[in-house]
């Protein structure tokens, strides 16, 4: 294509609209989304979003994998908080198999899920800071994400795509080092989070850039299917942890923070407050663990939970179970089931249809990023380009979850 072709126009350049191709590899979008925007100067007149640049056909793969092999796929949905996805999937299958989980496993899961919620919110909020010009926040708070990863490493051996736990519980018990690290994190993180808030919460520049930008009303948010911190910032206290408690969340005392106007500042505040609430939940969970019998880290369901390798070599029964689970011959009821968990970005749902075969007949993920993101183009209309960029970072759209 010849890039130097002459352009003939009689129109006044002041009245012409410019087409701006934002993405798919634009550094400001933090992911692979394309937005073709019609610009009038700095203002966006209209936009069209194109997604699917990392579509990996998860739902098709899931139809070809036995249940326990689907966990690694869920890792790669919202990779900023993979443990929530892993456990959401495990709980879906446990619900299908009607497995009664021991309280201790539930509490351990809650610790891991809340830690990953903090990791997720750290990314989002520091990126909002970064995009408004405060790089310090990003560099500073990111080290605490490393500390969370160290805890995950201690529990499961991996940092980011954790594949944490098994259907029926955990693969192994938390060791002493893991608890030491969690306690250390609980002591150090609040100090840093407080400093982070001091840097931004009352910062004139930050408030000017975010308050009153991209306001969203309650009705609009519900109409567009928003969930998670975005919906709560508009003032609706919908949280799956409260409305549909899973993993014994009903045993915990925590608050669901809500905003008023749904603008970027409110979303930032809601996420920050959720981090404080997550810390509270973890503390309560550690307290509750003290009164639980030690050493229980999975439900007593030998027909669904992989036996330890030592047993497999020395015990006939364990060998049979091992074989049956690995070959996918578990006795799962023919049923359909919808299970939702509160992911980092909102309601993460698993719609599973089982026909009694080796693999799911159909597995559909309700991915909050996908549903939240469709409002981006319509709400950008009339916005300044620089505001639209922060708006996108405050929506915390994760490309992996968006495209599945």
């Amino acid at each position, binding site marked *: 294509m010849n890039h130097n072709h002459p352009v003939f126009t009689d129109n006044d350049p002041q009245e012409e609209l410019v087409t701006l191709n934002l993405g798919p590899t634009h550094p400001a979008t933090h992911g692979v989304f394309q937005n073709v925007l019609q610009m009038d100067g700095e203002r966006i007149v209209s936009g069209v979003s194109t*997604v*699917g640049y990392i*579509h990996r*056909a998860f*739902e*098709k*793969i899931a*139809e*070809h994998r036995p249940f326990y092999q689907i966990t690694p796929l869920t890792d790669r949905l919202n990779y900023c908080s993979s443990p929530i996805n892993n456990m959401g999937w495990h709980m879906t299958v446990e*619900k*299908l198999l009607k497995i009664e989980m021991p309280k201790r496993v539930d509490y351990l899961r809650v610790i891991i899920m809340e830690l990953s919620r903090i990791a997720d919110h750290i990314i989002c909020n520091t990126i909002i800071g970064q995009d408004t010009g405060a790089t310090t926040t990003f560099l500073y708070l990111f080290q605490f994400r490393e500390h969370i990863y160290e805890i995950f490493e201690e529990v499961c051996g991996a940092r980011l795509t954790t594949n944490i736990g098994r259907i029926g519980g955990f693969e192994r018990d938390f060791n002493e080092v893991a608890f030491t690290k969690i306690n250390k994190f609980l002591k150090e993180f609040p100090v840093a989070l407080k400093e982070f808030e001091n840097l931004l919460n009352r910062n004139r520049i930050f408030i000017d850039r975010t308050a009153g930008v991209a306001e969203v009303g309650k009705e609009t948010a*519900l*109409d*567009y*299917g928003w969930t998670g911190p975005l919906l709560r910032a508009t003032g*609706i206290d*919908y949280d799956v942890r409260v*409305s*549909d408690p899973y993993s014994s969340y009903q045993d915990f005392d925590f608050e669901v923070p809500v905003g008023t106007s749904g603008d970027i500042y409110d979303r930032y505040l809601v996420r920050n407050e959720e981090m404080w609430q997550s810390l509270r939940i973890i503390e309560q969970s550690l307290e509750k663990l003290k009164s639980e019998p030690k050493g229980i880290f999975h439900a007593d369901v030998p027909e669904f939970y992989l036996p330890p390798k030592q047993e497999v070599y020395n015990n006939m029964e364990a060998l049979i179970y091992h074989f049956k689970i690995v070959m996918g011959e578990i006795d799962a009821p023919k*049923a*359909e*089931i*919808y299970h*939702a968990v509160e992911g980092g970005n909102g*309601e993460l*749902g698993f*719609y599973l*249809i089982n026909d009694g075969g080796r693999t799911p*007949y*159909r597995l*559909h993920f*309700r991915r909050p990023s*996908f*549903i939240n*993101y*469709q*409002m981006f183009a319509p709400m950008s209309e009339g916005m300044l380009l620089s505001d639209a960029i922060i708006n996108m970072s405050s929506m915390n759209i994760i490309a992996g979850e968006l*495209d*599945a």
Partner: protein
Amino acid sequence: MEQTTLNNDIHVKLVEKFGEKVTAVSEPYGLLTFVTYTDVIHNVLLHLKNELNFNFLTDITAVHYPEKDHGIAVVYHLNNMVERVRIRVKVFIAEKHPTIPTATTIWKAANWMERETYDFFGVKFEGHPDLRRILNMDDLGVHPMLKQYPLEDPNRVDKKDEFFGR
């Protein structure tokens, strides 16, 4: 138990309004599920939203049953946030003419969900403002989630079946 009485109420109200059009009612894992038909689905959804307070559209997707006459089930999940009830609505449509009225006029969220369903299953949502592929490439040519299409890229030459025991 509380859930069941609530579900019964909803069921009774739905049958009152739509009569025989509400069929195959079941309650797997406490979630009220029923099947309805393309001619009334729009009214059913509207009724659920406005009269029975199912104000939130959680999800739209589809399932393919190649052996059935009406082989594609479009599945709607709705949520009543106030009373904390979920409901599942299914419509079976023919694989040859997979058309169903759009829900975009009721919820804006339906837009991309329906585009995704169209992309994967080829379900044509009548009245959808912009029914294009969303995740796959425009020139893919097939609707890949239908059961007859393989998972792997059929054009690959570097994978020999004999090494995979096929």
